């Protein structure tokens, strides 16, 4: 996938905003800056414990805007529906979209709907694009990451991917009640920026690729070494068990309601307090530091007391979880 994007999709479009590879594009307009982001959703199954494709579609784009320091405001919604899709299901999904948008403080202001033949679109595909104004006190980017910074996680990771995988047909011989953590984080992130402003260097939500994907990317692209402490990384017990059963590492699995934050050391406590004061950040924790070493790798101190490199997950990409 990464290769496909690199070699075929991006080159014809190359421009300074696209090339920054941020979660949203930050665009100037008459003195102000806006963030603009888009995502398509092809999750299977459409409904799962803890959420559905509608909640995912709103949360995903809202979060991509929020992690760039923008206040998400307006979304577009594109629907591609398979002929024969149960109306009641569509009603439930639309109710989810509406409720999640209310929760996030955004409005769906434009949209489109198409129907395709039976056998296409696997029930439903959604696309959301979102726009938000950049906060004046936000200055976020990979280049702001410095040695000494602390790395925080807003809560337990891996929940979404595990919950969805266990509901799939191929999870033959498995039964589970695990719930996805899908949630819009505009409120949570707003609180952190209120408390810490420019002391926040970088944020990203650990979706595809999980926590491991985010921290290894930060290490690689900032060029600094990150060191994490395995014992400090929050993972829910139930989700650890599920990962054990599936032979997966929770650090490699997607969350859709969590954020990884790199913050100046002196603001770290303030950031954690702000996170923990919010219902979606009660279990926030400091998970690591940025080291003064031009290594570009992410190290982890293991529970057993050893050290190992944390690697971006690859290979058979976990299909259709977002």
């Amino acid at each position, binding site marked *: 996938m990464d290769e496909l994007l690199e070699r075929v999709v991006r080159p014809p479009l190359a421009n300074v905003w696209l090339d920054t590879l941020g979660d949203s594009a930050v665009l100037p307009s008459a003195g102000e800056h806006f963030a603009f982001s888009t995502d398509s959703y092809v999750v299977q199954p459409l409904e799962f414990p803890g959420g559905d494709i509608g909640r995912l579609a709103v949360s995903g784009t809202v979060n991509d805007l929020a992690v760039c320091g923008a206040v998400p405001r307006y979304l577009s919604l594109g629907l591609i529906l398979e002929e024969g899709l149960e109306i009641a299901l569509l009603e439930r999904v639309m109710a989810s979209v509406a409720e999640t948008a209310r929760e996030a403080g955004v409005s769906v202001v434009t949209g489109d709907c198409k129907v395709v033949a039976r056998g296409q679109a696997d029930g439903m595909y959604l696309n959301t694009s979102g726009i938000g104004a950049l906060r004046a006190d936000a200055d976020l980017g990979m280049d702001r990451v410095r040695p000494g910074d602390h790395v925080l996680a807003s809560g337990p990771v891996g929940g979404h991917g595990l919950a969805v995988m266990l509901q799939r047909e191929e999870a*033959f*011989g498995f039964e589970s009640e695990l719930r996805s953590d899908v949630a819009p984080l505009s409120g949570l992130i707003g609180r952190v920026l209120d408390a810490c402003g420019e002391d926040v260097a970088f944020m990203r939500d650990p979706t595809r690729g999980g926590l491991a994907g985010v921290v290894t990317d930060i290490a690689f692209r900032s060029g600094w070494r990150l060191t994490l402490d395995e014992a400090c990384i929050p993972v829910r017990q139930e989700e650890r068990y599920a990962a054990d059963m599936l032979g997966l590492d929770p650090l490699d699995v997607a969350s859709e309601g969590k954020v990884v934050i790199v913050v100046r050391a002196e603001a770290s406590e303030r950031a954690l307090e702000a996170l923990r004061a919010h219902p979606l950040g009660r279990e926030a924790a400091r998970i690591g530091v940025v080291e003064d070493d031009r*290594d570009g*790798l992410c*190290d982890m101190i*293991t*529970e*057993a*007391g*050893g*050290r*190992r*490199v944390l*690697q971006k997950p*690859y*290979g*058979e990409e976990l299909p259709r979880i977002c």
Partner: protein
Amino acid sequence: MAALAEELAELTVPFRERTLRFMEVCGTHTVNACRSGVHGLVGSAVTLISGPGCPVCVTAQRYIDAAVDLGRDASVILATYGDMLRVTGRNGSLEAARSEGASVRVVTSALEAVRLAERHPDRQVVFAAVGFETTAPATAAAILEVRKRRLANFTVLPCHKRILPAMEALVSDPEVRIDGFLCPGHVSVVTGSELYRPLVDGHRIPCVVGGFEPFQIMEALVHLARQVVSGAPLLENLYPQVVTPEGNRVARALLERVFVPGDSAWRALGVIAGSGLDLRPEYQDLDAVVRFGVTLGEDRDPPGCRCGEVLTGRCRPGDCPLFAKACTPVRPIGPCMVSSEGACQAFFRYRRNERRREAVVS
């Protein structure tokens, strides 16, 4: 843990010059040792080497080619454990075949493959039966189930291996120095720890059966070191919670009933007598090689690939010129990088910084 590391360091002081080489022959040991950072705790006098313990890695290319060719047959659904998917043979990999339209299905249990055959009576299901004695009983159970249900559309591609003949071949090789074996946990659950008796009594090699947690791995290494120091090789079982001397009798009986030891080709080790599990004559009709008239071809390693030497402990993954350059988990060349139990993938995932940091230090 710290106490174990200290004891290991003390015991091995006399061996600083030549270093003690302990070999593990189990994919799970390979991964867990790397993942938990145990390699960094063993001190400079001990090297924990990875042996031929990864079933997918040791499956000779001729079987991979046979599986891929069968997979590309339009009448066939090829059922396989996940790890086999990306190993590349003469005619591509199962994954490549799948993306070109072949019916290749990943199963987590041999019985799932049998269910596939029941659900698709119009297709022939071929199950790629790869794995050691831990996994072979599952195939045996599946075969008996197929007989019970009288299914005419199920066969296996028999690639099961027995670990002991490979261990014996390695200790008999003067180029490979092994001071002791960390014996596999789950293979031993099935076979029983007495399996390794010939290595201790015949070849005079210390053998310790150990569990998978880092603490258990370190403990096993300490016991191996103690044995070396005492000069009297023993067969020790440090995983008695699940490993007994005779193993799982029901599983062994099933193996006896369905399989008979035969010659088998291993990557890097060549053909080892009695090292494979062939179907008994009364089950030959369920052998895919027979049903489809498959001719097993030649084995050929990709040029430059040193998987063979990695598998026999002759070199470390980092010593292969392709490692982390042309050969990465995203674009693997040899099976040791493909398999999640392979030494190269484990090294790449958890120990890649070693080479880089060593370079910086020197």
